[in-house]
């Protein structure tokens, strides 16, 4: 079964007014269960909009969207997915553990069960010693790990991430990428991942969806075939470089007038 089924989705903001923006037109994309898919493209190509549509934070103008075999809205109400943003979005008045417990609170879990799950998630992101710290006592990378732990707390089958490592330095970023992969491998989670970085997209993904702006659309879907388990050695792998080249070529095709603006080519 596919985790996300996107059929002829379009999204326009300020529909019908003079400053109407066609954020997305006629998007078709099918994401298989357990797959890791990245959305990449220059600023304004609608990749974050697409992610928010899947999350049902906004409604499409037209088209059909199925998440986990149900409507996107039902999937949101059932908390079928977890979400993480570029800003960790931790609640500064809650401790690390209480932050992770928040989605469980809203699901109506009792206290003991919540605490048990929070500890389990903290172990997963290797922050068990920081359960009772406040977010501001943690480094940026640690905060982002807490945010990921929180997104995974309900054990969702789908993880939606909007440039979650965008604000991190390169070293932390690569480390976090490897951690994310091993977490997803262990849990079989499907991931839709928005990024600006070509190497990040290639390293993480089974498929990289290349998008272009005005109006936002999918120009190409690049299959990344890297043999075996991905780890730091993968970054020196010929297949990895081949993937990077393929994505870069696809992005070059994207409107030369302001090509690859907003793309970090590193």
């Amino acid at each position, binding site marked *: 079964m596919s985790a996300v089924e996107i059929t002829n989705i379009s999204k326009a903001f300020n529909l019908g007014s003079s400053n109407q923006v066609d954020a997305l037109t006629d998007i078709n994309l099918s994401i298989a269960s357990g797959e890791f898919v990245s959305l990449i493209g220059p600023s304004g190509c609608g990749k974050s909009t697409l992610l*928010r549509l899947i*999350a049902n*934070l906004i409604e499409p103008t037209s088209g059909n969207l199925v998440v986990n075999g149900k409507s996107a809205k039902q999937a*949101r*109400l*059932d*908390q079928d*997915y*977890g*979400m993480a*943003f570029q*800003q960790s*979005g931790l*609640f*500064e*008045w*809650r*401790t690390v553990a209480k932050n992770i417990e*928040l*989605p469980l*609170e*809203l*699901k109506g879990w009792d206290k003991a069960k919540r605490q048990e799950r929070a500890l389990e998630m903290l172990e997963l992101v290797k922050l068990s010693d920081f359960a009772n710290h*406040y977010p*501001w006592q943690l480094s*940026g990378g640690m905060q982002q790990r807490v945010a990921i732990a929180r997104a995974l707390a309900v054990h969702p089958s789908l993880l939606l991430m909007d440039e979650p490592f965008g604000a991190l330095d390169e070293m932390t970023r690569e480390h976090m990428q490897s951690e994310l992969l091993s977490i997803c491998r262990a849990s079989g989670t499907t991931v839709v991942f928005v990024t600006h970085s070509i190497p990040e997209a290639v390293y993480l993904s089974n498929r990289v969806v290349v998008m272009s702006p005005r109006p936002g659309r999918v120009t190409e879907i690049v299959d990344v075939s890297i043999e075996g388990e991905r780890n730091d050695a993968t970054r020196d792998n010929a297949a990895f470089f081949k993937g990077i080249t393929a994505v870069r070529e696809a992005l070059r095709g994207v409107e030369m007038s302001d090509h690859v603006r907003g793309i970090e080519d590193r």
Partner: protein
Amino acid sequence: MSSRSSSVVRSVLPPAFFGVAFVAVWELVVKGFNLKPYFLAPPSKIWQKFTENFDLVWGAAKVSGANALIGLLLGAIFGMAMSFVLSRFKFLNNLITPLAIALNAIPIFVLVAVLNNMFAITSEVPRRVMVTLVVYFIVLVNVAKGLTQVSPTHVELMKSYAASDTEILRKVRIPNAVPYLFTALKISAPASVITAFVSEYFGGSQNGLGSRITSNIANSKNAVAWAYVLGACLLGLTFYVISSLLEGVATPGGRAKRTREGR
């Protein structure tokens, strides 16, 4: 804890030293230049009058303090209630904010004179209403800001958790507004004391610190007036310290949070 106590010493010692030095210079100037007591009283004399008249100062402080406290509490309650209403109904915000600004532009103490006419001459109500009004606006503006200016990421997250508006209010907006409330209270606490004093200048019972200061100056009892001023300072300071301590108790992570918020 030793690093913490040393930081307390570092933050307390300089102002304490400055305060002592200031009083010493004051004393020396008055004595050295042989200033007349009606011009400026020396601190030693003020202290003497303060201890001599302590019961009177204390009694007056209780009257002004009670007015300030009652006004502060009522203003805070009304301000908070109104900020909830405003943040819930955006159109009311557009309706009331200009009105609030206009009302705030009135030299507010003239209202005391008006209020005095409405109540019995010995009534403390006009003064309390005055304090309530001043505190009300400070609390309203700040808490409304805290309730509405929440991080968009937090709101999106809550929506992704299928949270209702009530849950967003309880788990995001209210906790977000708590530091704003205490900022408002820290501004309001001394302001309420000052308002209570100044309100006494517009007639009514001559029982509070403000009216005692004016009547003693009128009688050329300068040092005694200064003793009441000292009482007024201590009362304002007490209000500030209490609101400051409450903030530390009510906001987890407390002060350190604010200084690190930039990250």
